[in-house]
Structure formats: C-alpha cells, structure tokens
C-alpha cells in the first residue's frame, strides 16, 4: 500500500486543528488508513489504494480535517479561465488517445514542495495510473512553454530532445534503450509506429508520455511559480480524476487553478472540471445495510464529515474522489463517519442448520484411526520442487509448474504425498526411531476439469525404523480397511521408488486406490537416510467416491 510522509507542523496547519498524538493515531486509523510510524516531526501513514486523493499531504489533511470536524462539507475550488489551448491531433488515437490538462499558478516552490509534487506524481503513476499504463502525468514550468500546446504522435526518429537528467539530445527510439525511464516503460510503447509527444508552439518537445519529460521544458525548479499539468491515457474520465486530484492538492499549496481548452478536432472540452457530481442516496437502503436508524439530518452531518454535501436526497461528491462507483461506496463513508467503534454488534435471530462437509468428516475419521496407531501427523507444503518430487524418488511424474515462483525449491504442485514425508524423515534423522508419520493432503494432476487440473486428496503413510517391513505397512492398510468395513485386494506392480517384488497396488471395488511397498534403498540413500522405510499412498477422494 502506498505511504504518505506528513510534516507534522505543516499537516496540523492544513488540518486546522491540533490533536494529541494518541487521539491523532486513533482518528487516522478509524478514518481508514494506517499509521505506519512517527519519526520526530514526520508522520508516515498508509493509504488504501481506493483513495488516490489522499496520497498527498494536502489531500490527507483535507480528509482528516473533515473527519475530526475541523472543516466539514464539500470544499469549493475555484477554476479561472486561462484562454490557453491544447490541440490534440487525431494521430494520437492509436497510441494514447486522451489527455486532460490544467495550469496552476502562483505556487512558491521550495525544495520540499518540489519533492512533494514529484512524490504525488509517482504514487499516482504506480497506483491509480497502473504504472503509467492508465495514467501518465507530466508537470512542466509554464514560463518555458509557448502556447498553444500540441499533443500528437510522431515518428520516433523525428522526436529529438534532451530527456530529463540526460547529458545529450537523443531521439524517441533511443530513449527506450538509453534512458533508464525509457527502458523501464518501453513496453508501454511496444509495437507503436508513432510515439505520442507534447510539443509547444516553438516546436520544443515537452515530453514523450508515458516515458519522460524534456530536461529543458519539463523540470520544476525553485524559480518555477506556474505549472502546466497534463494527464494522458485511454479513458478521459480517469484522466480527469487524476488531474483533479493533482490540481486540488496544488490549490491547497496556495496555487490558483486555471482551465485550458482542449481541442479534440472540432470538439472543445475545458479541463479541469471541478464540479461535484451527484449521486442519489437511498436512505432506507443505507440504514438497512448499516443496521442503523439514522435520520436524514444525521446522515447529512455524517456525509459532511467525509467531505460531501447533501442536498435534496442527493449526495454531492467532490470532483477529486475517484472511488465512488455506487451508492454503497458512500454508505461505507457514512459508516466510517459514524465510527466503526460505535456499531453495536448483534447476532440475528435466524435459524440455520450447521453442516460439516462429508469428506472432511471422512478425512478426520481416517486421521484419528491412524493416530490411534501411534502415528504422528505431518503437514507439508503443496508446492515443492522437481528435485524432491521426482529425482530423489527415482521416479518420473508429469507435474504442474507455476510461473515465476519467487522460491525455486517450491515451483511445482505436488503429485504425490510420499515425497513430502520422505523430506520430513530426511530432516529428522537426529531424533529417536521409530518415526511413523502420515499426512492427508491435496495432490495435483492434469485432468478434465474447469482448470484442466484435477485435485485429489491423498493419504501418505511412512514407517521408518530398523524393523520397518512390508508386513507392518500392510497391517496399517488392513486395519484401516477393516475399520471402514471395506474389502480390498492387492496385486503385484512395479514402481521405481519401491523394491521390486515388494510393491503392490491396492484395489477396492475394481478401483485402484493405493500404492503400498518397501521404499527402495536407492531412494532412501537419495534422501540421505539409512533406515528402512515402508510406505503407503491412498487416494482418499477415489476411496470416498466408491463408498
């Protein structure tokens, strides 16, 4: 989850109310964020990914100040008309079709503010912007730009400029291979014949979105006061939200917001649009979901605590909120404003009959029969490695692999249980024998199911002792089947993990349900063990189906 670093002093000024530390901690966590750490004058908070409007100090303070009743209700942000234009050419349609733009003037940028703006931009890129795929943001010193600004797509070889923090001028194609940001985001322009660019009226390149700004026209310094902001991507609504989040945060830094006219061919759109949107709220539904009995004016108050206004059965949603999809999202905010700690728990008086899954009952019966024979239950991972599953077992099974597992020792799904038990035995050589263990767990093979993978629940038993032999493991099998009142037969078979002539398949009602045998000394040695081992692997899923 993204974190925001807050400067305590600045933050308190923005919130407009000072709270004692423990109260502040409590309010932050009950607002729906997490206090990570407090380091001197710095407060670090975690923000949930559905609230990109809170990932700046300004946005966070705005939400908290409403929540603690310092400044409730909808915030008004003035947008002045600038008469500046951005001309969007149709060539961007196939590359990155939309942009939403604004100008913010009169900000006193110091080092700290520059860092804040860059961090806000980065966090929006990563989260809401899905690593720049959905939204890429450019912020430029406005005084270096000659309007109108053009957004178009050009042949990458013809785009020549000096990218941010790069020593020399290179072309669009070279950026993707030479500039670090180019390499990181190259995949977003992969296969595109033309690259999108923002270019000013002096033909100076401002940036190649979503990759990099120009060093000359795309770098904010302490001399900057006015900035041009653009968000580019594929969904105009999403870009608007991102832009609104940025400009309102900058306005809270005492900036003045100016609109721009976007010319999409003949269509003219003005951004940013900071008018609140309206959503109908069903009060009865609200009370029903929350289990409360709130009156309309109470709901209004709660909404104001979350930065909304309420008029004529409608909720006015601030233009920077990107998470409101349905009235249920507003109902959650009402619950948060009401305080989760204030909900009285209730167990409703409804009658339902509890019922355990029959197979779970079956599995437990088996487990208790085995513990009655003094066997210890083990529990291993479902993920394993080929080394364990096949090589050490002197076996060759077709297995299912996962993509790019972080741990290479655990990158395939197990196909049988005995290797897990062998691993357990090999890690416990220093303890007393006999070591008689079992495990009930899932194994995976290819099969005709929705996923193409069939899962079986299997029982594995291993007896490891100097006196372990076929009779002893067969006695366990025999006991289990007698207790389950099942007839079984054993037929000779071959299995490369077992000693030839001492391994069998167990058959119940014409169904092969188990392997049983003495583990081959080769396998025992592969696992670095020196004790005789006998083993049994029983397919409980199949067995359960037959009875």
């Amino acid at each position: 989850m993204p974190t925001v670093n807050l400067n305590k002093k600045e933050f308190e000024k923005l919130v407009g109310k000072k709270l004692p530390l423990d109260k502040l901690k409590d309010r932050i966590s009950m607002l729906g964020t997490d206090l990570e750490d407090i380091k001197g004058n710095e407060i670090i908070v975690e923000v949930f990914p559905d609230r990109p409007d809170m990932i700046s100090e300004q946005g966070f303070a705005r939400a908290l100040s409403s929540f603690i009743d310092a400044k409730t209700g909808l915030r008004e942000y003035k947008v002045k008309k600038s008469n500046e234009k951005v001309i969007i050419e149709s060539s961007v349609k196939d590359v990155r079709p939309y942009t939403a733009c604004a100008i913010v003037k009169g900000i006193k940028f110091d080092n700290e503010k520059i860092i804040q703006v860059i961090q806000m931009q980065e966090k929006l890129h990563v989260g809401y912007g899905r690593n720049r795929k959905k939204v890429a943001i450019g912020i430029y010193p406005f005084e270096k730009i000659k309007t109108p600004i053009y957004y178009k797509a050009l042949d990458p070889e013809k785009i020549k400029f000096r990218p941010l923090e790069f020593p020399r001028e290179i072309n669009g194609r070279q950026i993707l291979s030479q500039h670090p940001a180019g390499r990181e985001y190259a995949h977003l322009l992969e296969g595109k014949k033309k690259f999108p660019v923002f270019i000013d009226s002096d033909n100076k390149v401002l940036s190649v979105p979503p990759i990099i700004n120009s060093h000359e026209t795309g770098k904010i310094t302490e001399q900057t006061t006015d900035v041009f902001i653009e968000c580019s991507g594929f969904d105009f609504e999403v870009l608007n939200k991102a832009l609104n989040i940025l400009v309102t945060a900058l306005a809270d830094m005492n900036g003045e917001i100016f609109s721009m006219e976007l010319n999409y061919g003949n269509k003219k759109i003005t951004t940013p649009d900071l008018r609140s949107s309206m959503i109908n709220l069903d009060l009865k539904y609200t009370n029903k979901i929350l289990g409360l009995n709130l009156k309309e004016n109470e709901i209004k108050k709660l909404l104001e605590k979350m930065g909304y206004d309420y008029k004529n059965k409608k909720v006015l949603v601030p233009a920077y909120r990107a998470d409101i999809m349905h009235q249920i999202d507003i109902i959650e905010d009402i619950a948060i404003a009401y305080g989760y700690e204030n909900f009285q728990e209730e167990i409703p008086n409804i009658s339902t009959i509890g019922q355990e899954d029959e197979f779970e009952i079956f599995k437990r019966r088996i487990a208790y029969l085995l513990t009655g024979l003094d066997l210890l239950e083990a529990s291993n991972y479902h993920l394993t490695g080929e080394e364990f599953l096949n090589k050490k077992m002197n076996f060759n099974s077709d297995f299912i692999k996962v993509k790019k597992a972080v741990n290479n020792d655990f990158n395939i799904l197990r196909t049988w249980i005995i290797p897990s038990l062998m691993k357990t035995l090999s890690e416990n050589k220093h303890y007393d024998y006999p070591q008689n263990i079992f495990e009930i767990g899932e194994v995976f093979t290819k099969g005709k199911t929705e996923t193409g993978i069939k899962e079986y629940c299997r029982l594995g038993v291993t007896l490891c002792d100097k006196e372990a032999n076929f009779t002893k493991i067969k006695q366990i099998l025999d006991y289990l089947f007698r207790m389950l009142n099942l007839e079984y037969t054993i037929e000779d078979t071959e299995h490369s993990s077992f000693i030839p002539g001492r391994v069998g398949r167990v058959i119940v009602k014409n169904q092969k349900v188990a392997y049983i045998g003495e583990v081959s000394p080769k396998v025992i040695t592969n696992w670095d063990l020196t004790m005789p081992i006998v083993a049994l692997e029983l397919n409980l899923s199949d067995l359960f189906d037959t009875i």
Partner: protein
Amino acid sequence: MPYVKKLKIKGKEYWYMFHTVRDGSKFRKISKYLGKILPENIEQIKENFLKEIKKPKIEDKIDNTTKLIESLTPLERKVLPVLKENKELNEIIEKTGLQEVEVMRALQWLENKNIINVKKDLQEVISLDNNGKKYLKEGLPERKFLQSLTSELSLGEIKNKANLNDDELTISLGQLKKKAAITFVDKKVKITEQGKKLLKKESLEEQFLKKLPLDVSKLEPEEKFAYESLKKRKRIIKTNLIKIRTVKLEKLGEELSSKNLKTELVESLTPEIISKNNWDKKTFRRYDIKINVPKIYGGKRHFVNQALDYARNIWLEMGFKEMTGSIVQTSFWNFDALYTPQDHSVREMQDTFFIENPEKGQLPKKELMDRIKRMHENGGSIGSTGWRYPWNSEEARKNVIRTHTTVLSAQTLAEIKKTELPVKFFGIGKCFRNETVDWSHLFEFNQTEGIVVDEDANLRHLIGYLKQFFKKMGFPEARFRPAYFPYTEPSLEIDVYHPVHKKWIELGGAGIFRPEVVIPLLGKDIPVLAWGPGIDRIVMDYYKIKDLRMLYKNDIKQLREIKTWWK
C-alpha cells in the same frame, strides 16, 4: 453420630455420650462419661470422642521403617547388608557379586531414600602404561642389560643379547651408570661388584610396578622415589583422575542394615501369581510412585490441523454449513467474479501464482460471464459505474493457485437457490501468495472464510458473528477498523486483543459484498456478509511459535512434544 444421654443411676443423674460402631458383622455401643452436669463444649467433645474411637488406618499401623524395607528393590536388598563392613565400590562389587552398574544404581536409589550417603572424591591413581605392562613381565631394560653382561661386551652386543631398542639401551646406560653398576673398559662394558649386588635384589622401581595401582597421595617415601624416577621414563606408568565413592550409612541405614531384609517381596505382578491364587499371602514391594518415568509419545494430529478443526467446530456450532473447493482456480472465480479489475496489482505475477501448464482453464456459462463482464466494464445497470475498462475473457481464463478462500464464497453464491435463504456458509483452507519466505511470510497460509446471505443482514450482524467467533477462539475482545478490498463495501479490518501481550493482533478482512459482486452471481441485491481472516497468527500465538516457518517445519521433536490444542 454420637449422641448424649442422661442416665439415672441410683437416683442420681449422670451424663453419657454414646456412639455405635460396626465391628465385623456386629454392632457395638461405645460410651463416654461426661459428668454430672452437661459440659458446654459438647460439640468439641463429640469431635474428640469420634477421633478416639475411630479405627486406626492400615497405614498408621505399619511403621515407616517397615514401609521403607518393603520399598527396597532386589538390588538394594543385596547391597544394603554388605555396606556396614564395606565402604568402597570394588569391595561392594566383590561382596555382592553384582555388576558395577547394578551396584551403582542400587547406591543411587539408597542415597535417594536417605539411607546412605555416597561421598565422591577425586583420586589421582597411578597405573601401568603400555611399557610398564611389558616390563612387569620381562623385567626392566636395565635388568636385562645387566643380565647380559656375563662377559665384557660392546654396546651393540648388549643391545642384541638383551634384546633392547635404542631408547631402552640409552636409558639403561644412564640408570646403571648413576648406580655405578657398570664401568667402561676399552669401549666395552663391564659389570661392577655393585652391579652384581643389584642383580640379586629387586629395585625400588620393580617393587613399585608390582604394587600398582596406587594412590598418589598415599605413597610411602620409597614408593615416591620410584614414582618420580619412573614418571620421567617413557610410558611405563600413567596417572589418572578417578572418582572414588565411599559409602557412609546414614542413621536410617544403620537401623535398616540390622534388620532382616530377606523377606520375599513380589516384584512384578504376573499372571502366575494371580492364577496361583496365593498373592494374598505375599507382600508386594512398595514402589516409589513419585519417581520420574521415561517420556512416551502418542500418535497425534498436526497441531495446525487441531486448531483448524477447532475453528471448524465453532462455525458448526453457530449454524454454518461447510463449503469446500479446488485449490487451483481460474482467474475468473478468484478475481473477476469478485470484481477485482484485471489491471489490479494482485493479478500480477509477483503476487499471485499463475500456472504455467495448463495455463488457461474454461470459463463458466456465457450468461454468467457476460454479467460479470458488464459489471467490470460499465456496472451493468445497477447504478454503478463499473471499473470502466474493456474486460478481457482471456485474462479471466488464466489459472491461478487460489489467493483467498473468498473464491469459495463466490462459487457458493453462484450455486445458492434463493428459496433456501437465509444461508450461512463457512470454509477453512489453504491460500497461496508468491512470496519470499521468512519468519513472518509464507507462500501458503490458512484462512477461515464465511458468508451470510440474508435479506435482513447488516453491518452490525457482521460484527456480531465475527466477535462471537473470536470469543470462542479465545479472544474476548475484537475491534474493527475501516479497510479496503475491491469486493466488499463497507470493508473492515479485524483486530483481536491479546490479553497477555496487551496488544492488538491484525487478522484480516471482512465486509459486505458489493452489489457488483452479488447481483451477477445471485441475480439479486441481497446483503452478503463476508469474511476471510487468516488463522495462522492465532495458531502461532497459542503455541508460542515466533517463526511462521515452524508451522510446517515438521520437526518430529516439536510434533511429539507440542501440547494439544485446548482453548
């Protein structure tokens, strides 16, 4: 109970107390004279009266010494009688004819019972080394040297005749010269008169070797001389530190050793003793029932499974039905049906295990798929905006190892018949995340899932069910904070309070499923309470396990020793 009665004897009144006791098959009345006037402290007198007439218990009849004698093991019985005369270990071994270990064991037991005291001293004992053993048999090299000198011989000749090695030759030469037993004549060695005398008697060293082993601290002056001389020579003698045990009879021991210990006592009760029907004539040796016994380990369920079974039982008690399902799922069920957008970070490979082969599975029937697609793209027509992106069915086909048990809830919702409502379901199972393993992260973990599908369900019910569950799990206090999940709204984070550590433990999420989840699966917007907190933290806490990896380490010692789940 005793009773008080006034008796008139010859016209005078006397107070008596009576009590009836059973004596075999007869009854007997016992009386106590109280005086002419009834005493005031009658209750106290009653109590004392009862004490007086009460039959003494069997234990009281047998004195402690007899009890002690009856508790002696056969080994102790053999050892104890010889201890009065013999105080040292080898003497005791010799007298009793027992093995050293047996004697040691008996002494240990006797000492435990305060019958004897075993004093342990360290003693430096001199014994024969390899060369010493040889010389004791063959004689010291200097003696062999002298014996060879029947005539004047060169050193080489002596070496051969006396069969000495170079070392032995050199040392003999030195020794004999010092004792003036030889002289040199023209590079040949000749025995002196002194030498001839020496030949006739045993040297101090030779006498010393014969006496070994000896205690260094108890050497006579002559022995000391020989010891110092031999110590300097190669591997003739060696000294070892030896623990010497000296037995002292305690007061109790003195008393016992004079008693007859020979009584036949029964050791193990055998079928023969029982069937011969003469056991009542025998005395059973008294056992020390307080003694520690070797540990045994029974068969046992894995401790995590014990905990999961316990949790399962709680849901059953609360009227929930169990749901189960596959571990490998399509992204459709794991994500799309739960309204998780296809570009959400959880759907990237660094978080989730995707299957390489078969990479993709089948989608459900088209009707359901279209409903889900519409929810993602534009919110259908349920008053939602949806996620606003083109939904891709190929992305939904990708197989994953389930990241949460919530996938079971989605599948259950799709199966429920509306006529069955209200329904409550729970699930417990493994979930997977592609994560680096360390003490607080594992790629496999357990969740307990639950849904309540009820027309009248609300947020307070959700809190009610969860509080009840965790109370039964041993956490009387739970709190709920706002949280975020793509598929619930409102969403909550569950914390339980740890009464011992006095801190909150974060367990995971809960909420009410969004209409975007419920409507396509169930066909109607009915409140569905849902939760899926992790359970491993609770298991770790209960078993005081600090490292998550220890849950599935399968260390046999841990599995043998770990206590049973008993909340």
